[in-house]
């Protein structure tokens, strides 16, 4: 029971973290290595608004999410657009921007245990003999809500549909009047906002550190790789597999093997099924 509940929480956290990265990659084929930086940016921004400017909690959350999505869009529109289509340059440029943002916080002294966001609801409940704090339940709720929202958004709104169209067939959608750069900007803005939402619900569990940014980035990539880049169902499948693997390893073998098992898992997945669990790799047929 314990394993189930904490496995679930862990999985939803991973799914939340990865969804922004997956959205951006899925739509614009851009591996946004600044994802982790945007994540902690929201954390620190919310903290600043809350504690320095005295804005109320909800206000600071909304404000910082809006700001970060604008920053995300700006990063693409002003910088990354110049190296679009050159994967090595894209990765290096976005990683460098991300590191610059994160290390700027380190320089400004955002490195102590004092930086943490308050939970939405304090206290904990007992479910089937397991004590679980409200915040974790909220995370599960928000995670499921976000999945639903994303599904509705991508299937029933015009912007969402155009995002999906670009993801599926770029040339055909360009011909039907969808502009790839504009959708890429939108996807980056949305991806950053998703990172922000993930940050504000997850960060109250612990404290905001610069290292979190690096960790979020690697986790997001791991989830997307296992699930298959550019596949929504894959992201969730990957998050759940990874989430439960982590918790099970910690419980059965020992926490020090957690990372080893996860890495082996990723490597084996890739060797056995190179495109990830649910990713689609072009059939050889199409390439010959």
């Amino acid at each position, binding site marked *: 029971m*314990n394993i189930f509940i904490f496995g679930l929480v862990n999985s939803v956290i991973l799914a939340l973290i990865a969804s922004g990265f997956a959205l951006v990659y899925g739509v614009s084929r851009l591996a946004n290595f600044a994802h982790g930086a945007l994540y902690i940016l929201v954390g620190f921004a919310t903290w600043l608004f809350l504690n320095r400017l005295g804005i109320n909690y909800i206000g600071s959350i909304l404000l910082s999410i809006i700001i970060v999505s604008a920053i995300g869009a700006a990063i693409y529109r002003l910088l990354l657009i110049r190296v679009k289509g050159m994967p090595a340059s894209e990765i290096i440029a976005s990683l460098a921007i991300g590191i610059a943002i994160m290390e700027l916080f380190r320089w400004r002294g955002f490195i102590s*245990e004092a930086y*943490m966001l308050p939970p939405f609801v304090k206290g*904990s409940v007992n479910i089937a003999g397991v004590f679980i704090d409200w915040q974790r339940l909220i995370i599960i709720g928000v995670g499921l809500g976000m999945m639903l929202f994303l599904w509705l958004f991508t299937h029933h709104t015009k912007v969402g549909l155009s995002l999906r169209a670009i993801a599926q067939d770029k040339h055909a959608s360009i011909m039907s009047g969808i502009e790839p750069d504009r959708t890429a900007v939108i996807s980056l803005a949305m991806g950053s906002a998703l990172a922000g939402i993930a940050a504000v619900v997850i960060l109250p569990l612990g*404290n905001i550190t610069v290292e979190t940014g690096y*960790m979020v980035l690697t986790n997001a990539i791991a989830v997307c790789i296992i699930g298959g880049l550019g596949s929504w169902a894959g992201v969730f499948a990957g998050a759940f597999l990874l989430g439960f693997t982590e918790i099970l390893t910690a419980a059965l073998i020992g926490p020090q093997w957690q*990372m080893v098992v996860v890495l082996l898992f990723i490597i084996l997945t890739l060797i056995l099924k190179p495109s990830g669990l649910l990713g689609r790799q072009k059939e050889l047929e199409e390439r010959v």
Partner: protein
Amino acid sequence: MQNKSLVSHIGTRLLLMLIILTFLFFLNPKVSFAQPIVLGVPISRGYPDGVDAERGITLAVEEINAAGGVNVAGTKRPFKLEISDTRDLEPGVPVAEALLAVERLIIEKKANFIVGGPIRSEGALAAMDVLSKHKTVSILSAGVLSPAYHKRVAENYDKYKFCFRTTGSVIPMIEGTLGTFESFKAKKGFDKAYIMVQDVAHARAAGNSLKEGLEKKGWKIIGYEIYPTGTTDFSVGLSKAKEAKVQVLIPWFDMPEVSILMKQWYDMKVPALPIGYIHALQDEGTWKATDGKVAYSVVLYAKAGSVATKAIPMSEAFVSGHKKKYGIEPRSEWTSTSYTVVYILKDAIERAKSLEPEAIIPALEKMDMMGTYGKVKFDPKSHQIIENGDPKETAVSMWAQWVDGKRVIVYPDKIATRALELPPWMK
């Protein structure tokens, strides 16, 4: 009209910036007045540990310089600080980076002594060879609890005689810890413990020897968990501890995420008192940051001094000086050790009447002076600080409990300011 594109404009500017930076670097002015004694401080400035050490050293240097400096064979010479960022606590950065920093401090900044770091054991151990190559005396005062350090000095004294360490080592720390637990057992009747350690060498070694030592003394060790650095969920281990009705949790961590452990412990109301080396919870700000959920935890400081106690006069001066300069009480023990280390050097230089290693090393070996954490004495064979006794005779560690937003010393009894308290759900 020769209008250039925006791209080449920015390219030129970038180049200009590079050139300017290069010049800034090569043209650093070499001012020489009153021949200062250069202290090279290689630390990770982007991490709390590094900042703490930097604060301690800066404070002491300012105090000494304000008082006229160091008396080297008759002439008063000030200390000059050269702090270099090693980034050695960053996981993705190779240690070669830290070694380069040490070497540069010695060669380019002409550092007479290296104090402070490197903070990571791996880096400090590798730096020993650099120090012995350049024959530069170094006193470590932050991080590095691995016993390998003084073992190497003892094994190859002639080569590594330049290396001293005041931070302590896991082995005496464990002895001290065992003593603490015996005292708590006698006072409160605890005998069931649950060990949780971080997956780094010193913590694992500590965990193992604690387990052995406690079992020998009749404790029951219910569980023993190793957590990788950066873990953010401790709920599985905590529930196990709760089910097994453990009375003492022994966490041994130096990562910041450990505050999550305390929050989860408080929220789950685990009826076991956390007593251990929880580096991230030493900071005064912890109380606010955890909403007071750190309450009742007992935290080990590898060296005393960060909380003022009447038993050690220098600690009171240090804490008030720190509060005056930085507005807060000293955070971790590394501020205290790094503060004292400058005074140790001053004392050694004044007695040696020279800056030469040949004179300084014997002076340090014969060191006998009160610091912020008791009497400072080095073992002449291993250059390790002698600890765990009377604060009037040796250096001591300190166990502080969080009570009402304050840190109070609960052990050792000689410097204690208050008695141990239990959380309400344990009564």
